[in-house]
């Protein structure tokens, strides 16, 4: 794998919470404009790894990494990298929908506003565009000034995706984005992911094997802080090479 | 915020005057200050109650303009004032009879001698004289609870001087307060109490207190307008003073206030329960003040 093909890459990555090593020598390269899924039992380090990709763990006391993470070939932990710039490039969506307790409009344009953009027109256009991309525009266009907390869980999650899209990242990280949602909302989100991967590189953590199977191009199986297996999703689900992977995807544990 | 009740007329004086000191004199000065408000609404007069000693210390450091005093300035205070370049004038404003009181339910004390007062208040009494029958054997074998002026009070100095024989020297184990109201409260609610304070405070609370005739060898005498005025209430009759600082008289509002004070002191002193000086004495005080003011004015130039 050359750097050109891969959007995101981890080289010999170790991660620690204080003395506890949460990730052990991770090596992985994720393809541009594709969906990569992370699976594995609870506590195996999926979220930890995902959050190192946009340095969300920076504020956790005692967290540190060794090794490299490259975005478009540049080490995102290099001293000259600005975290805020990085996060504009690498957006994130969380497990529980976390809209800000503000209006829908304010939620979507938040990322732009904090960049200092004040022009009403630009903001409104960006808002509409992002909501459309997130397949939410039709549902909320008449109540942009209503509180985002009044939306349903599924709508809130799509709003969070719209919010992430508004700042035009190239990568979107999603940590179990549908696990708190009902089946119908889940389906909508999966559909949306399918749509988004045309323009974005997507990394998604899921504990739902079926979901990984449905939405992802590649799947990485983590186990106790290690990356056990990384392959095309189809390959992984039909002929896993490691017995731990096999046990996991056949439901023997996890 | 909103302004006070500005009445039309009066003087157009403005500025502020700070007064502090004696709680005994306080009622008079308070009354004058209040009446003066109608005269000169824009002059802010503040009156503190720190006791004569407390007031004198501030006065001699130049922190206040006028000090209320229930005794004359003492040497060390005069010395400090001098060091700070402050000269002053002493003005008499009223007479007071320091009154010895007990609880109204007290039926054993009919009178008291100066010697007995000394016995219960002198420093040697501290911790030893604690029961009524130690003072006069026929009095009951009950605890005695003493209430008196605090050490910053002119009243304290005067009382110790007159009774104990040495200024600023007494026992310390009694309820001491610079605020005579507290003493009135204490004595009027404590059947075993004995206390002393200025006549005005007794006059104002007659119903709750019982004044005790003091026997200075010539038989027991109760304080009253007459006995104080004619001096037969001895040794606890005394004059009350104001001291005005030379720095303050440079300000017209201070001069105006003092003149107003001396004009109305007689009437107001009587109103609050003290004994007015004869009219000619007030006139003397006025002249005295005028001389001082002009003197200070030339000195200041």
């Amino acid at each position, binding site marked *: 794998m050359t750097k050109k093909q891969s959007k995101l890459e981890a080289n010999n990555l170790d991660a620690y919470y204080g003395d506890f090593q949460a990730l052990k020598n991770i090596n992985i390269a994720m393809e541009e404009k594709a969906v990569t899924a992370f699976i594995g039992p609870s506590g195996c380090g999926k979220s930890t790894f995902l959050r190192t990709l946009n340095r969300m763990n920076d504020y956790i006391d005692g967290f540190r990494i060794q090794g490299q993470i490259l975005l478009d070939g540049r080490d995102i932990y290099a001293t000259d990298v*600005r975290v805020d710039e990085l996060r504009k490039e690498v957006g994130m969506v969380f497990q529980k929908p976390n809209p800000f307790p503000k209006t829908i409009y304010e939620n979507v344009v938040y990322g732009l506003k904090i960049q200092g953009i004040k022009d009403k027109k630009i903001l409104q256009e960006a808002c509409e565009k992002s909501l459309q991309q997130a397949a939410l525009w039709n549902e909320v266009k008449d109540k942009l000034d209503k509180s985002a907390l009044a939306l349903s869980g599924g709508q809130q999650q799509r709003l969070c995706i719209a919010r992430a899209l508004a700042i035009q990242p190239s990568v979107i990280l999603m940590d179990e984005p549908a696990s708190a949602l009902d089946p119908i909302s889940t389906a909508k989100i999966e559909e949306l992911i399918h749509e988004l991967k045309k323009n974005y590189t997507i990394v998604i953590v899921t504990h739902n094997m079926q979901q990984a199977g449905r939405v992802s191009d590649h799947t990485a199986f983590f186990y106790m802080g290690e990356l056990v297996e990384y392959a095309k999703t189809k390959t992984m689900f039909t002929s896993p090479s490691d017995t731990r992977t096999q046990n996991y995807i056949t439901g023997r544990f996890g | 915020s909103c302004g006070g009740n500005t009445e039309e007329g009066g003087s157009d004086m403005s500025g502020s005057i700070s007064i*502090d000191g004696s709680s005994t004199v306080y009622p008079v000065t308070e009354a004058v200050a209040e009446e003066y408000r109608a005269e000169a609404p824009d002059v802010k007069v503040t009156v*503190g*109650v*720190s*006791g004569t*000693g*407390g*007031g004198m*210390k*501030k006065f001699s*450091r130049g922190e206040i303009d006028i000090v209320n005093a229930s005794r004359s300035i003492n040497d060390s205070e005069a010395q400090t004032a001098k060091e700070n370049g402050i000269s002053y004038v002493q003005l008499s404003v009223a007479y007071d009879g320091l009154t010895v009181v007990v609880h109204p339910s007290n039926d054993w004390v009919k009178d008291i001698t100066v010697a007995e007062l000394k016995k219960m208040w002198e*420093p040697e009494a*501290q*911790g030893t004289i604690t029961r009524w029958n130690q003072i006069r054997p026929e009095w009951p074998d009950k*605890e005695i*609870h003493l209430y008196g002026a*605090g*050490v*910053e009070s002119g009243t304290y100095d005067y009382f110790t001087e007159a009774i104990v024989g*040495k200024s*600023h*020297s*007494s*026992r*310390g*184990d*009694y*309820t*001491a*307060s*610079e*605020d005579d109201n*507290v003493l009135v*409260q*204490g004595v*009027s*609610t*404590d*059947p*075993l*109490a004995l206390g002393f304070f200025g006549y005005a405070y007794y006059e104002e609370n007659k119903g709750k207190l019982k004044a005790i005739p003091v026997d200075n060898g010539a038989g027991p005498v109760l304080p009253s307008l007459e006995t104080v005025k004619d001096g037969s209430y001895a040794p606890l009759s005394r004059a009350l003073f104001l001291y005005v600082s030379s720095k303050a008289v440079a300000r017209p509002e201070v001069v105006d206030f003092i003149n107003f004070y001396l004009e109305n002191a007689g009437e107001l002193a009587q109103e609050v329960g003290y004994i007015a000086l004869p009219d000619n004495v007030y006139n003397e005080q006025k002249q005295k003040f005028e001389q001082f003011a002009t003197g200070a004015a030339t000195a200041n130039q």
Partner: protein
Amino acid sequence: MRVQEKIIEGLLWLSAAITILVTASIIWVLLSESIQFFSEVSIVRFLTEKEWTPLFADKKFGIMPLVAGTFLTTAIAIAVALPIGLTIAIYLNEYAHARFKTIIKPLLEVLATIPTVVYGFFALTVVTPFLQSFIPGLAGFNALSAGIVMGVMIIPMISSLSEDAISAVPRSLREAAYGMGSTRLQTAFGVMVPAASSGILVSVILAISRAVGETMIVAIAAGQQPRLTLNPLVPIETITTYIVQVSMGDVPHGSLEYRTIFAAGMTLFVFTFLLNNLSFWIKKKYQEKYD
């Protein structure tokens, strides 16, 4: 941008650091004046003499009478507040309906929001005359009514904090007790109170600390006469009242009299400091007992 962030963080840090400055200033103010005081009056005299007459001819510098006055009013206050407060806490927890509890708790807390001068007024003008109607020897200023009123004031401190502590005991323990046939009373005193003892202790210590430092109630109603006595019926003086008394007289800066209030303040500070730290320590140590 980054500079701005740093500046803001610096300003925020400064604000937090001011609290240390405040503590340091308190200690400095108290220490610098008390050290001068103790250079004139030996600390042995201060601690052992049985009289406090620093303003008088026969100067005695024994803090004991003031400490005794403080102790007396505090003890009365706690004697009132502890049984009532704890009973309320247990009653609300074990017996009362949840709805009743949510109404009563804030109502009781009103007691703690009333300014203390108001309590002083109440002690002097209502409680003392009331007590005098059946305690003939009671002086107008006395430790008893000040202490009782102070106790009323700190009831909600004990009841609320203890109730919180008892609520924090896991349900399973209560159920275990009931399951064995305990009455509610037995459950409360046999299981819940012991299990919540550290929290209850913290509430009591904080209440004591509050009572020790209380000023206006005692200044108005307890008297101004330092007296080494445990008799609640006569005028006494607490450390706080002494400070108020001298402040009212405006004793000039730099005199020994002036310094006495700082020596007294230092004593007060040491007491409350020890109590507060003790409660903080107990809380930290036993907090995580049940997660």
